[in-house]
């Protein structure tokens, strides 16, 4: 696939998303002019890009969508209901086409028919009367000039012109022939024509239905004469023509509607599954370039030291030089690391913005009324985490609409608002991102879960009876819990909540559920902000080495055994007038206690939630920057372990999740 097409696909996805956002906003608030403008710009730009390729059906449909949006903007078409549905339908189809193009390089065979159908449906929304009164484009919209003549303007011949050109777009009224007008005769009267384009305003009907007396033309032309001379030609039809002067050699695109949302300056990535492209703020790249420059200097310094060894210079100088060099490289690697991590960070928004439409579609299919809202879309996390969240979140949202939301009648009878409220929320908590899907639907009934779990042999009966309600509700994540029996058109399809939990755990996070019968359900996904590098402090316990994430560690203290206070069956100690619970890590891990050191206990003080906790270990080892791997394979079900990392000697270090271990 060539570069141009790759870029087209990336850009098309962004524009599709932007158009969707604006259309959905429009659906909620039909008066928002800015959303019409936004959708219009996105569709217009997309149509322009489509024109670069042989995707005529897509261009046809988008052209119709653009005209309808233009009609809405000028107040000539209704801004709600059916019209928005048609527009969203067109954008959905465009997205499917882009997917097909990405896979195969061209449009599917049935696209021609579909494109024509969409165009016709969209044009139906522009009512007949409105078409007759087709108003000229607003002064601000010069996009058509570039579209019609862009390549020509760019050509050397026209660019060399010293005089300004006049661009005109003439859309004769449909009934102009009856008024005796001949639009082409008018065009012929325009002095010094430089370029002409004649096109159809609406798709041509089949030959048998053609009305030869209804004008369906759009005439665009460039002239080398002065503005007033062109205006004079069209003086009797000023309402049907748009005339603009173009400065010589001017870049039309400067006037044309901006093709991109200028606010997206940092990192944004395409959300498509196959595409792996990142847009990166230039400043971040510059910073990396600077760092690489410094690294080159550091490398040269090292080469100089190597040379000194050959010269037989003093050992002491050499050692000092090596120390300095090592410190510099250390610092640079750390900074480089941070710079790379920053580049990989992307806002949740990049996947969150795809959900309003998904929820709308799902609730439409299921006949549920849902108020969906999103919070914290600017929370950032590693690209792999953000992108990995899409599928699981989509599934969770489907469940919320399908199983959570009640029918409007049931809700009203239960004294709730008629529309089910579903909130998707992201928050940064320490080095984790917390994603919640919160609904105020019917909640999960633990007794139903127990019954289903028993029927499907998810757990032994006696175990089920012993479980608390919370544990029973957690069974929704158990493999085999959701089966074909409850597969509806929307939920199901072989992915259950067990797949959600597995995916989240593969990303180094964990999934949990909290539900109150009748009041709603919250699915909580906790994920690391970055899966790549973690600062780890290694500790020794019972002769084994474990890692603790340094982010949670407040300090390390040496505690004389005499200062340990027994509190019922637990222990505590006082640190600077504050009593902290004391947990022995060996006990927590079910390991035999290590030897009691004479000097006192070694304590790692960690923040667990809002609390401080002292964790007793046998010894402190080094601090390392570790590439943490999420648990996989047989380890993946292990709780209390965030991940593993390889140590320098090749052994595996398990990194503990203390909050989870403490439950």
């Amino acid at each position, binding site marked *: 696939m060539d570069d141009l097409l790759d870029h087209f696909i990336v850009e098309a996805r962004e524009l599709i998303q932007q158009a969707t956002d604006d259309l959905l906003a429009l659906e909620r608030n039909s008066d928002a002019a800015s959303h019409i403008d936004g959708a219009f710009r996105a569709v217009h730009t997309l149509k322009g890009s489509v024109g670069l390729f042989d995707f005529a059906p897509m261009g046809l449909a988008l052209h119709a969508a653009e005209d309808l949006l233009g009609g809405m903007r000028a107040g000539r078409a209704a801004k709600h209901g059916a019209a928005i549905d048609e527009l969203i339908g067109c954008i959905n189809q465009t997205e499917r086409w882009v997917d097909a193009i990405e896979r195969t390089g061209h449009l599917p065979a049935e696209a*021609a028919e579909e494109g024509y159908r969409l165009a016709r449906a969209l044009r139906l929304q522009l009512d007949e009367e409105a078409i007759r009164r087709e108003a000229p484009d607003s002064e601000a919209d010069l996009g058509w000039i570039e579209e019609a003549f862009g390549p020509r303007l760019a050509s050397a011949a026209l660019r060399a012109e010293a005089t300004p050109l006049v661009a005109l777009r003439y859309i004769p009224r449909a009934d102009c022939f009856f008024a005796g007008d*001949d639009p082409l005769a008018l065009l012929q009267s325009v002095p010094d024509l430089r370029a002409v*384009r004649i096109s*159809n305003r609406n798709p041509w*009907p089949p*030959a048998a239905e053609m009305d*030869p007396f209804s004008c369906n033309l759009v005439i665009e032309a460039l002239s080398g004469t002065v503005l007033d001379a062109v205006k004079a030609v069209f003086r009797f039809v000023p309402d049907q023509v748009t005339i603009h002067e173009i400065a010589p050699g001017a870049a039309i695109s400067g006037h044309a509607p901006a093709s991109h949302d200028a606010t997206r300056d940092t990192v944004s990535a395409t959300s498509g599954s196959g595409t792996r492209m990142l847009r990166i703020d230039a400043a971040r790249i510059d910073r990396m370039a600077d760092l690489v420059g410094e690294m080159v200097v550091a490398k040269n310094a090292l080469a100089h030291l190597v040379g000194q060894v050959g010269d037989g210079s003093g050992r002491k100088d050499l050692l000092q030089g090596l120390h300095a060099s090592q410190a510099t490289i250390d610092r640079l690697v750390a900074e480089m690391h941070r710079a790379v991590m920053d580049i990989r960070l992307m806002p949740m928004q990049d996947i969150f913005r795809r959900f309003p439409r998904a929820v709308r579609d799902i609730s439409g299919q299921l006949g549920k009324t849902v108020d969906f809202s999103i919070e914290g879309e600017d929370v950032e996390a590693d690209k792999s985490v953000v992108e990995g969240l899409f599928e699981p979140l989509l599934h969770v949202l489907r469940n919320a609409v399908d199983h959570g939301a009640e029918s409007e009648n049931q809700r009203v009878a239960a004294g709730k608002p008629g529309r089910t409220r579903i909130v998707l929320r992201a928050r940064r908590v320490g080095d984790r991102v917390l994603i919640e899907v919160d609904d105020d639907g019917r909640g999960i009934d633990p007794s139903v879960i127990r019954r289903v779990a028993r029927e499907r042999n998810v757990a032994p009966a006696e175990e089920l009876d012993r479980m608390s309600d919370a544990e029973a509700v957690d069974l929704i994540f158990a493999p085999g819990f959701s089966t074909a029996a409850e597969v509806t058109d929307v939920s199901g399809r072989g992915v259950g909540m067990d797949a959600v939990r597995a995916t989240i755990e593969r990303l180094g996070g964990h999934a949990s559920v909290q539900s109150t019968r009748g009041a709603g359900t919250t699915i909580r996904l906790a994920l690391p902000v970055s899966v790549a590098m973690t600062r780890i402090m290694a500790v020794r316990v019972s002769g084994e080495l474990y890692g603790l994430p340094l982010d949670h560690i407040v300090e390390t203290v040496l505690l004389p055994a005499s200062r340990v206070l027994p509190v019922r069956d637990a222990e505590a100690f006082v640190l600077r007038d504050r009593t902290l619970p004391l947990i022995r890590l060996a006990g927590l891990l079910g390991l035999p206690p290590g030897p009691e050191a004479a000097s006192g206990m070694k304590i790692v003080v960690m923040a667990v939630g809002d609390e401080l906790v002292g964790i007793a270990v046998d010894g402190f080892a080094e601090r390392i920057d570790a590439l943490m791997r999420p648990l996989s394979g047989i380890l993946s079900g292990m709780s209390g372990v965030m991940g593993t990392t390889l140590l320098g000697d090749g052994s595996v270090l398990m990194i503990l999740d203390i909050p989870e271990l403490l439950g």
Partner: protein
Amino acid sequence: MSVRLAGDAIVLEGPCRVEDAEPLLSLLQAGPDRTVDLTEASHLHAAVVQVLMALRPTLKGTGQDGFLKTWIIPALIGAESGDTPPEDG
């Protein structure tokens, strides 16, 4: 009368006016494969042009008039290859 049938060709002669659009359309509807000969045409009314754009017959000749030759016929051919909706496939 500036529209006439000559064998398999529809011949447009002299200035073609708005009233020529309908006979031209009927001839093309009856025989979609007919060629349209523009060699003797001096002007084409917009109504005639849009019939040619919509039905896309094969065109022959470039007309008698500079305006027609330079702008209208090329625009017709341009529209034929680019801006009209595909009907199938």
